């Protein structure tokens, strides 16, 4: 048994590939907890960032700067009366939120947080992700139907139409990225630099980017960028976020498909929505932004060797510098909370909050210090960069929501079918043409 447990530790495979069910379970639990953690942080972060963009303060009362607000909210939602409309289709009404959450979390099975940090690596990983994540709409349709009410029904109708039209553009963009994994082409490093072999595996895609020494967003510039742009737009539409938040459009449909939901069930929808946001962001990161790779992944600089601190002969000074990033970010956050604790108004009522903020800063600083230790530091690199990129995406989501008005239904369709779809087809075509450039040139010569 112990052998079974430890044998995995030295493998360089994901637990799924190694066939190790125990570690797979551990990974699943860790990812579940991690994603839930991201959702909690996101909940607080969204309210705070949105508030500050709108010259407000956001949550301030529960804990210092509202840090405990998500927990308070969770308790409130859990203890709320569970209301089910008497005319509702009960089993489906019950199933819909569960379904949404289940789907939102299932896709994380193949998300690679690092070369080995995934539950499993399927050879059709990206296909699995797209397939499963588009099942989420079923939950929304079920919710809309089962509520037996007009606003949810319209929300569900909008949602299904929206998903169908954006899935296609999204798929085309993804195919373009997958094609890139198999094409050396004329990258910034010259024709045929580091040609990879085509793959659908999520880990394989990131590794292809590493081998080709380029994030796919920059490959065949601007083709990769355009593909990424298409995906970025479709991704917002997929997750029902502003400016494409039509299914829940609060000013038109009250709350859209979850109008009739409250308490725990409603919170499941929210959990599903945020988890879905993280999931699609991780697809984008994996396909175009180099997954777990740090910026400039192939610049190593001169090799150095510092005993104990840095003992990777194959890596250089740049790697050494970047390895401090996680710790530095944590320490910066710690400094930020200390700074804010110092700026807290001196008021007897705020004493506990100030102390709490100092304590929070201490915890962050502690984490930062732990991350400095070489063994931890080296393990955490991949995960850190992945999560960091997710955080950037989440910020963008909030920023869009704060700034832009909402599209109307027909305009949304227009953007999907008349702009993104042709653009996606064009990008796919151009990717292929550039990628096969040498072959096409040779063939043309033969003809002429």
């Amino acid at each position: 048994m112990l052998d079974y447990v430890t044998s995995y530790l030295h493998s360089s495979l994901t637990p799924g590939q190694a066939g190790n069910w125990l570690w797979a379970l551990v990974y699943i639990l860790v990812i579940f907890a991690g994603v839930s953690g991201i959702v909690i942080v996101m909940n607080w972060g969204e309210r705070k960032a949105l508030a500050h963009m709108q010259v407000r303060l956001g949550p301030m009362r529960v804990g210092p700067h509202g840090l405990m607000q998500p927990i308070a909210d969770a308790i409130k939602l859990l203890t709320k009366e569970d209301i089910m409309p008497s005319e509702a289709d009960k089993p489906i009404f019950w199933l819909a939120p569960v379904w949404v959450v289940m789907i939102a979390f299932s896709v994380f099975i193949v998300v690679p947080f690092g070369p080995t940090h995934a539950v499993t690596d399927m050879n059709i990983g990206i296909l699995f992700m797209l397939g499963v994540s588009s099942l989420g709409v079923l939950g929304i349709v079920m919710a809309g139907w089962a509520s037996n009410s007009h606003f949810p029904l319209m929300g569900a109708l909008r949602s299904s139409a929206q998903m169908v039209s954006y899935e296609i553009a999204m798929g085309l963009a993804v195919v373009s990225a997958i094609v890139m994994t198999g094409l050396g082409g004329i990258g910034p490093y010259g024709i045929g630099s580091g040609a990879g072999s085509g793959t659908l595996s999520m880990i394989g895609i990131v590794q292809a980017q590493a081998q080709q020494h380029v994030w796919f967003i920059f490959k065949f510039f601007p083709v990769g960028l355009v593909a990424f742009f298409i995906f970025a737009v479709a991704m917002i539409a997929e997750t029902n976020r502003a400016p494409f938040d039509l299914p829940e459009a609060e000013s038109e449909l009250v709350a859209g498909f979850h109008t009739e939901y409250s308490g725990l069930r409603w919170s499941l929808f929210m959990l599903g929505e945020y988890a879905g946001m993280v999931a699609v962001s991780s697809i984008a990161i994996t396909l175009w932004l180099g997954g777990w790779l740090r910026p400039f992944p192939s610049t190593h600089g001169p090799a150095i060797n510092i005993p104990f601190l840095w003992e990777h002969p194959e890596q250089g000074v740049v790697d050494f510098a970047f390895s401090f990033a996680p710790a530095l970010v944590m320490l910066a956050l710690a400094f930020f909370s200390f700074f804010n604790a110092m700026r807290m108004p001196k008021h007897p009522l705020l004493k506990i909050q100030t102390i709490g903020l100092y304590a929070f800063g201490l915890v962050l600083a502690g984490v930062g210090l732990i991350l400095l230790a070489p063994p931890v530091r080296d393990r955490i690199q991949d995960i850190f960069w992945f999560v960091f990129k997710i955080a950037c995406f989440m910020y963008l989501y909030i920023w869009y929501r704060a700034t832009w008005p909402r599209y109307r239904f027909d305009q949304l369709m227009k953007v999907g079918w008349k702009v993104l779809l042709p653009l996606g087809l064009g990008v796919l075509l151009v990717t292929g043409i550039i990628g096969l450039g040498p072959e096409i040139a040779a063939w043309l010569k033969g003809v002429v």
Partner: protein
Amino acid sequence: MSIAPLLNKVFMVDLIKGLKVTFKYQHPKEVYTEQYPLERPAIAERYRGLPRLNVNPETGETLCIACNLCATACPEHLIVVQSERNPATKRKEMTSFTLDISRCMFCGLCAEACSTDCLELSQDYEFALYSRDGFIIDRARMERGSEPTVYTR
């Protein structure tokens, strides 16, 4: 379509302009919220809040001469003044004064009508109550005037 608007459209200048505004306002200095019980709003001198009955600061006697002008002026007929003629001084003396602030619209007509500057709208704005009963306030409450709520833990 000329070239400049086209470029604007392709590079989404219009959308980015908006993003710039929202980004700029994230600075903590721009926050406009007042954290109410900690920071109290500065109330203007002329603020029309809870009506108050002024007393002579030296003697502590009420300034009200029970002329009933305020009661007549009030559009909602919220004021009831009862008086008694003091046989010694031959003057009318106010015995009770009630005001239903649950229906008061703080228009200030009563204070304008008052002949002795006795009735005045004070700067007190914190008179929320848990039940409707407390809203009919009597002379004692009105003479005490402002009672700002003190928040404790």
